[in-house]
């Protein structure tokens, strides 16, 4: 057969044409970031990286704008990499191929001192910096005064004790600066593990560098610059379209972190969110909040900005908006110097900046969007760090060796959204569920630990049209001849995750000790428990808030939750107004639609 050309239409240049090229190059860029990430995940030595997946890999433009990021923990990714590259630029005006910088200063862009970043400028043959690649990895130890990377009770950075690096050149000409290596090896508790993780992280940035150089050679650096510009414009347009779907409005909502050592009254957080739909802009003001506090909860600037932005990206309910410097143009975050959720002043400690207080910024932002724009936003995600996420330590009677490790035995917290029920294993807002939950068999094999029970707790979901996740119950203790310490820093024991648009609050997190006689003793929210054989610790994770009125929940969803044991028959009737017939024993439970309608109308 003879094919004939279909038409001779002249192609139009400009945006439309770049739509094709852009699609292809952005696939390449995401592949490169993913390649970096795979390298790090596969080669890291510490559990926090190769199991918990607590790291991120990103590509930035030569002027330090975030361009591409593989699927990484949101709290690591959005803002911070840009600030850190700016720090590199500031202290090292001349950048050469082969340079690599170690940076973990929370006062200059890093999230917290435990997150070591390696930053490599991608320099072309002519000596021009074309891109930056950055890999951030949470260290198993970072030289703190105590063997933990979460120094919640540290009154300042001196008590915290981490080695702080500010754009320190750890490689020139692709060769290690042994001075810095020796510093780390001398100070960091598990030097071999640190070294293995350093190599893994270095491998990631060098692979990213190699791939970008190849790409530049293949399609030309100017074309790549054009691409970056076009990609940012596209992302900005997607952001504008997403914001335009919301109504304009402004609201101030409040949240609070539970009392903590150093802050006996807790930390109130106030966020003001303003949506300007016509302009396609969202602004979050965090300035009306307390000064930095003498504890490790203060946010770094990177975490303060990112935490607010997580609430925004969660609240848009449009994952088609690429989270990069282009869509960031439509967001403003107002921060204040020396503010507990702002720009920290040295020497206040930011040791726990990525989790507890950061969530107290993200979750009210997503709730505020819901209050301004019903149908968007989210309820609050459950706060974290109950005992089931604690650090266990002691001596293993089976081997005589000491052990210390963080466990993930059951953390839930997913918030109700306008379109879905809370994602059960979200862990916390900044994590987005990307980390894993432990297997009981693996934990019992690795540690002298016995997990008596792990199950969801009925009626702990934040009720709503779309409900939050229920709390998870976990009860565990040491095996025979072992004394076990369990350290945890829970939030959400007093202030639960609130619902949005008339949705209910999620269950509170709780901690108890199960005594030998079977009785329960309540434990404080930030605590180091000591357990002997026959004693157990009981952990309740925080549930997620619900979205929308419970009375509008689809009765079939209520029936589903009832059949699955997530809610009781009483709750189905009293909270959701659903009348159920039949019996669980014969699996004949069903909704009585007429009675349900009558009951709901009387409420």
């Amino acid at each position, binding site marked *: *057969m*003879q*094919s*004939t*050309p*279909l*038409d001779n*239409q002249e*192609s*139009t240049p400009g945006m*439309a044409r770049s*739509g*094709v090229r852009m*699609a*292809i190059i952005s*696939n*390449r860029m995401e592949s490169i970031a*993913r*390649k970096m990430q795979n*390298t790090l995940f596969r*080669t890291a*030595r510490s*559990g926090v990286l190769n*199991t918990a997946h607590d790291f991120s890999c990103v590509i930035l433009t030569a002027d330090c704008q975030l361009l591409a990021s593989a*699927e*990484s*923990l949101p709290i690591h990714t959005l803002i911070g990499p840009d600030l850190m590259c700016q720090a590199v630029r500031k202290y090292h005006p001349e950048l050469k191929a082969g340079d690599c910088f170690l940076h973990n200063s929370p006062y200059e862009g890093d999230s917290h001192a435990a997150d070591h970043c390696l930053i490599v400028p991608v320099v072309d043959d002519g000596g021009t910096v074309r891109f930056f690649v950055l890999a951030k990895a949470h260290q198993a130890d970072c030289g703190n005064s105590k063997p933990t990377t979460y120094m919640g009770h540290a009154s300042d950075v001196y008590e915290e004790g981490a080695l702080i690096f500010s754009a320190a050149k750890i490689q020139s000409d692709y060769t290690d600066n042994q001075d810095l290596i020796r510093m780390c090896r001398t100070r960091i508790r598990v030097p*071999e593990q640190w070294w*293995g993780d350093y190599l893994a992280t270095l491998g990631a940035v060098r692979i990213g560098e190699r791939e970008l150089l190849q790409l530049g050679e293949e399609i030309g650096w100017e074309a790549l610059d054009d691409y970056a510009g076009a990609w940012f414009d*596209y992302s900005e347009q997607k952001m504008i*379209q997403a914001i335009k779907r919301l109504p304009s409005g402004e609201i101030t909502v409040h949240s609070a972190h539970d009392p903590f050592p150093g802050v006996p009254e807790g930390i109130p957080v106030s966020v003001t969110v303003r949506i300007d739909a016509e302009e396609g802009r969202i602004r979050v003001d965090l300035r009306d909040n307390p000064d930095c506090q003498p504890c490790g909860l203060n946010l770094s600037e990177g975490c303060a900005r990112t935490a607010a932005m997580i609430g925004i990206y*969660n609240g848009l309910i449009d994952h*088609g*908006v690429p*989270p990069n410097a282009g869509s960031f143009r439509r967001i403003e975050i107002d921060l204040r110097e020396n503010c507990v959720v702002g720009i920290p002043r040295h020497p206040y400690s930011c040791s726990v900046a990525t989790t507890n207080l950061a969530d107290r910024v993200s979750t009210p932002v997503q709730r505020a969007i819901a209050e301004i724009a019903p149908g968007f936003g989210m309820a609050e995600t459950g706060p974290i760090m109950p005992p089931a996420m604690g650090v266990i330590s002691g001596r293993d009677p089976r081997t005589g060796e000491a052990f210390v490790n963080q466990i993930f035995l059951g953390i839930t917290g997913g918030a109700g959204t306008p*379109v*879905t029920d809370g*994602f*059960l*294993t979200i*862990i916390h807002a900044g994590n*987005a*569920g990307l980390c*894993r*939950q432990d*297997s*009981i*068999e*693996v934990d019992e*094999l690795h540690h002298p630990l*016995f997990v008596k029970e*792990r*199950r*969801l707790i009925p009626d702990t979901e934040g009720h709503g049209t779309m409900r939050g*996740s229920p709390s*998870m119950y976990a009860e565990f203790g040491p095996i025979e001849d072992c004394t076990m310490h369990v350290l945890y820093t829970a939030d959400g024991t007093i202030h639960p995750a609130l619902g949005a648009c008339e949705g209910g609050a999620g269950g509170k997190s709780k901690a108890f000790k199960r005594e030998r006689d079977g009785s329960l003793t309540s434990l404080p929210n930030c605590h180091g428990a000591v357990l002997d054989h026959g004693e157990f610790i009981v952990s309740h994770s925080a549930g997620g808030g619900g979205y929308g009125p419970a009375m509008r929940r689809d009765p079939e969803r209520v029936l589903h939750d009832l059949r*699955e*044991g997530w809610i009781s028959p009483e709750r189905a009737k009293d909270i959701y107004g659903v009348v159920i017939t039949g019996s669980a024993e*014969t*699996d004949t439970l069903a909704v009585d639609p007429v009675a349900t309608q009558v009951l709901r109308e009387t409420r």
Partner: protein
Amino acid sequence: MRLACDTGGTFTDLVVEDGDEIRLFKASTTPDDPVRGVLNSLALAAEHYGRDLGDFLGEAEMFIHGTTRAINAILTGNTARTAFLTTEGHPDVLVIREGGRIEPFNFTVPYPEPYVPRRLTFEIPERIEANGSIRKPLDEAAVIAIAEKLKLLKVEAVGVCLLWSIVNGEHEKRVGELLAKHLPGVPVTLSHLLNPTLREYRRASATVIDASLKPLMFQYLDSLTRRLREAGFAGRTLMVTSGGGIMDAEAVARMPIHSINSGPAMAPVAGRYYAARDFDGAAAIVADTGGTTYDVSLVRDGRIPWTRETWIGQRFRGHMTGFPSVDVKSIGAGGGSIAWVDEGGLLRVGPRSAGSTPGPVSYGKGGTEPTVTDCSLILGYIDPDFFLGGTMVLDRDAAAEALRTKVADKLGLSVEEAAAAIFALATEKMVGAIDEITVNQGIDPATAVLIGGGGAAGLNAVAVGRRLGCAGVLIPEAGSVLSAAGALMSDIASDYAQMLFTTSRRFAFDEVNAVLASLEARCRAFAEGPGAGALNVTIDFSVEARYAHQIWEIEVPMTSGRIETDADLEALQQAFHDTHQSIFEISDPGSDMEFVTWRAKVSCQLREGGTGQLPMPKSVSHELGRRQIYFSETGWTDAEVIRFESMPSGVPVAGPAIIESSFTTVVVDPGTNAVRSEGGGLRVTF
């Protein structure tokens, strides 16, 4: 004579191997009664040979079958009503899973439902500890009471997975006995027998999936073997397994989880053979292009890659089978992937697919969204009158019109430019998928050859291979039926595993050797039973191990079936360091290691070499003519069209050219060269 038949979503592929010759046949898949599609393909073959179906089948010794029956039943929720029995205190094993999520800002995807709902989950009062000791004895009265409840609930299958049954299976065994007595006729799967692997979620998941497939697969395989027999077949019916081997159909009916990945698992088996034959055993990237998915696997040093993290559906959103399977990565980019333009003006391909119904616009079956297949027609790559050897006529104008309104006009491009852009983007997605697995396994694509399987593979295999910088591209002569061809090359195989935790510092020699001896005995029994009469029997031992304090084990091949001396242990440790180095590019020679699960795999070889060759047809002319085809670099260009089957070996064809057979079309890009190998495959180099 041996027959291999692979039932896919759209087509049922048949390969007939008669001595040193093979012949290929394709029939439509008949989803309402897939056995009919199988019989139809056999009828086509019988007709080709000019034989009566009964006579034809009477000559066949072996019928090897791959099917998507099990996976489809799972995906469409048509499995048996299954109950899950778990240890008291742990009812949410299938709900909590192992955590993990993709797409951090995508909250439109709900949390996955458990494979078995909580209302069909029952807690058994009992508990075994990590060292195998019984902390709480089994409450048999409670089990009997549960059996009564299951009867009342009309449960059709039961999966039992108790904590630590892998170190002490007594409680599970006893529960199995009690169910057999008090719930007769209902199939039961016990986790320690099916999949003795650490981590309760994945073991439980495999267990309930297996149980849920038992009624259905028993019925299907029973119907298949009966109707084959009725049609005149008197040989042995075997099934392709997820592990890349074959097993007797009756054995698969007893453990149907073996069949869930049965189709894709064969592609690397075939790829390994073709890479060895036509590319000197280079590392091979095997890519199988289907209607909705693009399946990629890697073969290195002649070894088929394995994984124990197989997902049904998307990672973290579907169900993990936790069952050893050939490692095949699947992305949603097939011929049916739909092209569209998003609201920001960006061109997109997939993830939606037109599948086989309604299919691409050009099939004229009601499809309205332009697909990758439509684009290949527009670009002149596919001949609308010679699709599947002319058995199906395609509508090029309809495809062009759909592409114009849905994509080209929105981008301000001509129709052919839009089609070429869609091809480039689909190519890029495939390259991304391949990149990811090559990086994960430490392979440089520049040293590897890309093997294109599936009917649509040839359309952009050369483009993909070139973008990856591969050493070359190979389209095997049986590439369009790669899985069925692989089935003819497989061994009858089975594998066994047992957990025993020990460390390099305090290595439990006696216990380990006892475990290995028992695994070996089971392999020998298999070889003397289902494997009887094999040309060759091999038993491969391996152990899943890790450095102290690591979490994830890797599988390390063992050189012998016993660890007797310190030197043996030393060698095993060295093998672990080497494997770790090759996968992760680092090793830690000073570190202790932990050994967790011991495995033995028995393979009984049926045939020498790979498979026969396609005979050269005598009557077909070499060159079919010329036609206009489009590339972005050259625009419309005049290209030779050559008949694949008639190409002599060793005579190169320079691109741009199209090489066509009844089952596939290979686009030879400008600047590349194609040549037929001695074996019959098409090698393209650049």
